């Protein structure tokens, strides 16, 4: 695998991550992420054949509860923090989704 990260790679990742980076940020992150990935590549030399992955360390315990409705946030509380709420309608307002 190549350890060289290009500006195009950074643009592709930024699009996946929903980040509109400035040109300056793209330059900086290309260099810094390449450094970090080059360092991180050392894990690839370790023999892990047959080793299971650890996603988390909590002991397998059942945490289910009865499927009964519980109290949750009121609609008024839920929209109170929104940058562009429509409180009377109980909705969050967003820019157009298609086109524009």
């Amino acid at each position, binding site marked *: *695998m190549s*350890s060289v990260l290009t500006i195009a*790679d*950074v643009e592709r*990742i*930024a*699009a*996946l*991550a*929903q*980040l*509109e*980076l*400035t040109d300056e*940020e793209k330059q*900086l*992150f290309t260099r*810094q*992420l390449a*450094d*970090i*990935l*080059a*360092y*991180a*590549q*050392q*894990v*690839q030399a*370790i023999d*892990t054949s047959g*080793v*299971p*992955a*650890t*996603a*988390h*360390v*909590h*002991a397998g*315990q059942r*945490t289910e*509860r009865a499927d009964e409705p519980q109290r949750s*946030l009121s609609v008024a*509380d*839920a929209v*109170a*923090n*929104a*940058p*562009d709420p429509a409180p009377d309608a109980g909705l*969050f307002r*967003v*820019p*157009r*989704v*298609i*086109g*524009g």
Partner: protein
Amino acid sequence: MAADLLDRSALTLRDDVAVGRVSAVEVCQACLARAQAANVALNGFNLIAAERALARAEQIDRQRAAGEPLGPLAGVPIALKDNLSVRGMRTTASSRILEGYVPPYDATVVRRLEDAGAVILGKTNCDEFAMGSSNENSAFGPVRNPWALDRTPGGSSGGSAAAVAARCVPIALGSDTGGSVRQPGAFCGVVGLKPTYGRVSRYGLLAFASSLDQIGPLTRTAADAALVLSVIAGADPADATTSREPVPDFGAALTGEVTGLRIGVPRAFVGADPPSGAGAVTTGLDEGVRRAFEQALGDLERAGASVVEIALPHAQYAIPVYYLVATAEASSNLARYDGVKYGYRSTGTKDQNLQTMYSRTRDEGFGAEVKRRIMLGTYVLSAGYYDAFYLKAQQVRTLLRRDYDRAFEHVDVVAMPTSPTPAFRLGEKTDDPLQMYLADVFTVSAPLAGLPAISVPCGFSDGLPVGLQLTGRLFDESTLLRTADAYERLTNWHTQAPPLPPH
């Protein structure tokens, strides 16, 4: 009087309030005055909630006057890292993207603390979304180390550690993902405890890396850490990752006894530089840190403990594993910040489409380190790189856990310095993120293995505090607290106070 109050432990203050030697309001006023004065130089608080705190303290005094039972933290002021939700109190995670956000609910730890009578004094500054090791990644500016104002307090819970060290509060909460309670504890000369994964509910903690995050106390004594942990620990239906493991009375474990305790030291790892990949830098162990660490081991040996050499062959890979796993999880957790439901939205996007609003909001709302980690995490989870980086890191994480399992067959705790160096200078590592990551070499292993770990003050290097780190078996915080408390009875490092601003 006020200065003396500020030096008292939470346990002492709690007892003083309970018998009426001092009122909760007097304690609260003293802490508020100190916090306001110290904040000018330290910038440790994002918010000091004076009115709310005083109202709460008055309530405790009324309860006492009425002869009502008081909780185990009644009248004790506490500061909370600003990534913990308090209903009605601005919570920012030191990020612009949460501008204007006021949580509509309390974190479980907040409810438990207030039920125990604690008085929340305010919210402390931290690295943005707890991502950093120096508290320099804050939208509200860096925190300064009370021992040396040109140095970092550590991170990411830098404000909490600085506030406890500067006697603004006897106790504070932080969160620890890769060392964010223990390392600032070491840098500021206070105790920092990261409990076992699953020990403390994260409900209401703004998530960074969900397989690693734990909430823990910063205190001036191990006994106070035991007290706080006893209050906040335990199963919570609102956090499915909490364990139903019984919560012992941690205070009762503090016998002062370490006779027969087996302390494992991974000498090859502690003494060695981390392996250098292409373009990497090495992290040498500071001579003053090494001396303080060896001295602490000697003190514990003389008190009856034995020191045994152990091997943790995969600990040298903990930094790359940590930064691959933590950033992958962060990229997912932080996807929720999109300018729709709460917080900041980029202005002038009304005529744009939704996609542009999202990406512009996130670029303007997140700081550089958070964006860097989101990018790294997105990369290692993306097609073609997942197996080579993310999956591989998770497999090495298993190998690291096995290293600890093997070590704990022979020893009761594992000792390392908390950080290879004492507090570094502000600005020293900000241009080189990799150099900053390498500073976490001794703290990232414990959370990867889910293990509890504590940092306790063990001396100074050139006038800057040094921390001794002890890692324990799963859910065995008791042995860590007992050892740290016994060590405090042998030494007076934990009683040292930094020079304080005029009161």
